[in-house]
C-alpha cells in the first residue's frame, strides 16, 4: 500500500510513564490501547489494523503508545467478549472495537467507560461508546454506486442488484439510498434485486439467472465484496465484457483481474487502513483528554489531516473511495 516508509518511533517506557501530566493539547504517550476487530484472521481487519498496511497499529506506534490487536476467532459476541474483558483486566487505557453485536457487548463496555477507559468503535458501531468512526455514510455508499453505474451505461438502460442476504441491514439500507439516488436518472430502470447470500457459488448462479432472464440488462450493482467478485467472474467472457457493466463494493485484490481486463471499470469501498488509522488517532486524542466526544471538537489525524466530531458522537472518514484502472495497483488488501 502506498503509505511510504514507516518512521521508527523510539519510546522509552520510563519517560512514558511519567508523561501523564501532559502540556496543553499534547498527547499522552505509553497508553495501553487494544485494537479489537470482529475476529482475527479476517483480511479486511488485518488491513485496517496492521503496521504494514498503515492501519491502527501504525498510528499507535507513531504516537508512542502500546498498541496490540486482540480478538476472538469467530465473528460473534461470545468469542469477542472474553477478549474485551481480558483487555480491561490488563489495564487498558483505550479500546478500539468493531462490534460483533450492537448491544451484547454493552454491559462490559459500559463498565469499562465508568472506569475511565476510552471506547472507540470503528467499522461496526455499538450502542455504547465514546466515539464511532464511520467509514462512509449509507447515503454516500448508495449514491456513489448508482452514479458509477449510470455513468458507465450512459444514463440509460436496465440495471439489477446482486445483494447478500434478503435481511442484511447494511445491504437493505444501501439499496434504499440507491433507489433514492436513481430518481436522478429517470432512464435507468432497476429491474430486479437478487440475493447471493454472500456465497460465491450462489452469487454466480443468481447473476447467471439475471443474464438469462434480462437479455437487455446494461448494468449490475453488487454492494457486497463476495457478490461483486462472483458477478465479475460470470461477466468475464467476450459475450458480456464491456456490454454488461458492473460496479459495487469490492476489495482491490479480488477485483484486480477484472479491472485489468475491462470487465469492471470502477468500484467503490473505503480504505480500511485509513479507517483503522483514524480510529487510533481519535482514541488517543480522547484518552489523552486533548478532545472530548462533543460535536464540533476537532483533531488532526496524521497523514489524513483534520477531522471534526459530527452529530451522535461520530467521525466520518469521508466519501467512499473509488478504485479504477489508474489507482488499483497501489493497493494490496
Amino acid at each position, binding site marked *: 500500500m502506498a503509505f511510504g516508509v514507516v518512521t521508527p518511533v523510539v519510546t522509552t517506557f520510563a519517560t512514558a510513564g511519567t508523561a501523564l501530566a501532559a502540556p496543553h493539547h499534547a498527547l499522552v504517550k505509553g497508553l495501553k490501547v487494544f485494537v479489537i476487530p470482529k475476529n482475527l484472521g479476517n483480511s479486511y481487519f488485518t488491513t485496517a489494523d496492521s503496521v504494514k498496511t498503515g492501519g491502527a497499529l501504525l498510528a499507535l506506534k507513531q504516537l508512542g503508545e502500546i498498541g496490540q490487536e486482540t480478538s476472538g476467532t469467530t465473528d460473534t459476541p461470545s468469542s469477542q467478549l472474553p477478549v474485551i474483558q481480558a483487555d480491561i483486566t490488563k489495564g487498558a487505557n483505550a479500546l478500539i472495537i468493531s462490534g460483533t453485536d450492537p448491544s451484547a457487548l454493552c454491559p462490559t463496555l459500559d463498565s469499562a467507560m465508568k472506569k475511565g477507559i476510552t471506547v472507540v468503535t470503528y467499522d461496526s458501531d455499538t450502542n455504547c461508546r465514546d466515539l464511532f468512526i464511520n467509514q462512509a455514510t449509507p447515503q454516500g455508499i448508495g449514491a456513489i454506486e448508482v452514479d458509477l453505474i449510470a455513468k458507465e451505461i450512459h444514463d440509460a438502460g436496465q440495471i439489477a442488484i446482486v445483494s447478500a442476504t434478503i435481511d442484511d441491514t447494511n445491504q437493505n439500507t444501501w439499496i434504499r439510498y440507491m433507489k433514492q439516488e436513481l430518481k436522478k436518472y429517470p432512464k435507468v430502470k432497476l429491474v430486479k434485486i437478487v440475493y447471493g447470500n454472500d456465497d460465491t457459488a450462489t452469487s454466480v448462479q443468481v447473476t447467471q439467472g439475471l443474464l438469462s432472464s434480462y437479455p437487455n440488462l446494461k448494468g449490475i450493482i453488487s454492494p457486497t465484496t463476495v457478490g461483486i467478485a462472483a458477478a465479475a*467472474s460470470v461477466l468475464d467472457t467476450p459475450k458480456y465484457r464491456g456490454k454488461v457493466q458492473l460496479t459495487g463494493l469490492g476489495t482491490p485484490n479480488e477485483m484486480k483481474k477484472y479491472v*485489468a481486463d475491462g470487465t469492471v471499470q470502477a468500484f467503490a469501498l473505503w480504505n480500511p487502513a485509513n479507517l483503522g488509522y483514524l480510529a487510533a488517532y481519535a482514541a488517543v486524542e480522547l484518552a489523552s483528554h486533548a478532545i472530548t466526544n462533543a460535536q464540533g471538537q476537532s483533531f488532526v489525524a496524521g497523514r489524513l489531516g483534520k477531522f471534526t466530531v459530527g452529530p451522535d458522537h461520530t467521525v466520518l472518514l469521508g466519501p467512499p473511495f473509488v478504485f479504477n484502472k489508474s489507482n488499483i495497483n497501489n493497493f494490496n488488501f
Partner: protein
Amino acid sequence: MTSPLAWADGQPGTAPSGSRRLVDLIFRARELGIIGVLAVFVAVAASVQPRFVDSQNIKFVFSNTVIFALLALGETLVVLARNYDLSVGSVLGLSAYLSAHLFSQVHGIPIAAVFLVGLAIGLGCGTVNGLIVAVARVPSLVVTLATLYIFRALDVLIIGGGMVVAASLPGGFLAIPTSSAGAVPYLAMVVAGVVALGAYYLRSFRSGRELYAIGSNPEAARLAGIPTGKRVFTAFVASGAIAGLAGVLWAAVYGTIDSTAGYGYELTVVAAVVVGGVNIFGGSGTVIGAALGALLLATINQALYVLGISSFWDKAIDGLLIVVAISLDHWITVRLTAALRKRSLQHAT
C-alpha cells in the same frame, strides 16, 4: 436392508443371463425416468421463459453441473459399497485453495502440474478416510463426518483470513470452464467422458462388480472371497482423488477462493446420487444415473433463478425429489426381488 438384484447379477464372470437383462432394463428405465423429469422441468421453464433454452443459459447449466457430476461419480463408488463419504466438500475446498495458491507461489507453473497437485491432495485425504474405514473398521458415516470437520479446519488454519484472487490465476486456467463448442463447454464433454469410463468400469470389471456385491451384502461378499476391505479402501481413495480434481476445477470456475469453497456440497452430492437412482444402502445404481441426478438438480436450480422464484423452493424441491427417488427405489427393489425369485423358481423346475 439388502438388495438382491445386483447380488444376483454380481457374480463375476457370469454370462449375461435373463436376470441380468432384467436388471439392466430396470437401470436403463431408471435413467430414462430422470431424463423424463428433466425434460418436464425444461419444458415448463422454457414455456414460461423461452430464454431458458438459449445457448448461453444451457452453457450456464452445464458449467454448474460439472463439479457436482464429478463429485457424484466418486460418491457413487463409495455408496455402492454401502459406505458414505461426507468429506467431499471439505476435500474440494482444501484442494481448491492449495492448488490455486500454487500459481502465485511457483511462477509459471504449468496448469497440468496444478491439476496433479489437486489430485494428490485428494488422494491423500481419500487415503486417510479409506484407511480409517477399511483398516480400523470405524463406520464411514462417523469417519467422514469427522474428516469433514478436520479437513475444513485445516483449510481455515492454512488460509486464515486470506484468499486466492482471480488476478493471481493465469488466463488459460480461468478459460478452462468457459471455452465451449456451441452451448456445450469442453469441460462438460470431458466430464461426460470420465463418467462414461466410470460406468464402463463398474459394469465390466471384476473389481467394479465386486463393489455392488459388497453393497448388497457385505458379509456374503466377504465369505465369497471378495477382498472387501481393499475394495472399500480403493473406493474412498477414488472419491477423494475425484474431489481433489473437482477442487482445482472449482478454482477455475469461480476465480476467488477463500476457506468457504465447497462448503455444504456433501449434502448436494448425496442428493444427486440418491435422485440419480443409487440405492442409499448400496448394491444398486449407476454413475450415469448419479451424473444425471446432478444435472437434474442443477437444472432445477437454474430454472428457479431464471424464473425469479425464491431459492427457498430450490431446497424444498430437492427434498421432494429425494423422497420420490427413495420411495421409487424401494418399490422397484420389492418388485424386482419378487420377479427374480419367481424366475429362479421357474428355472429350478
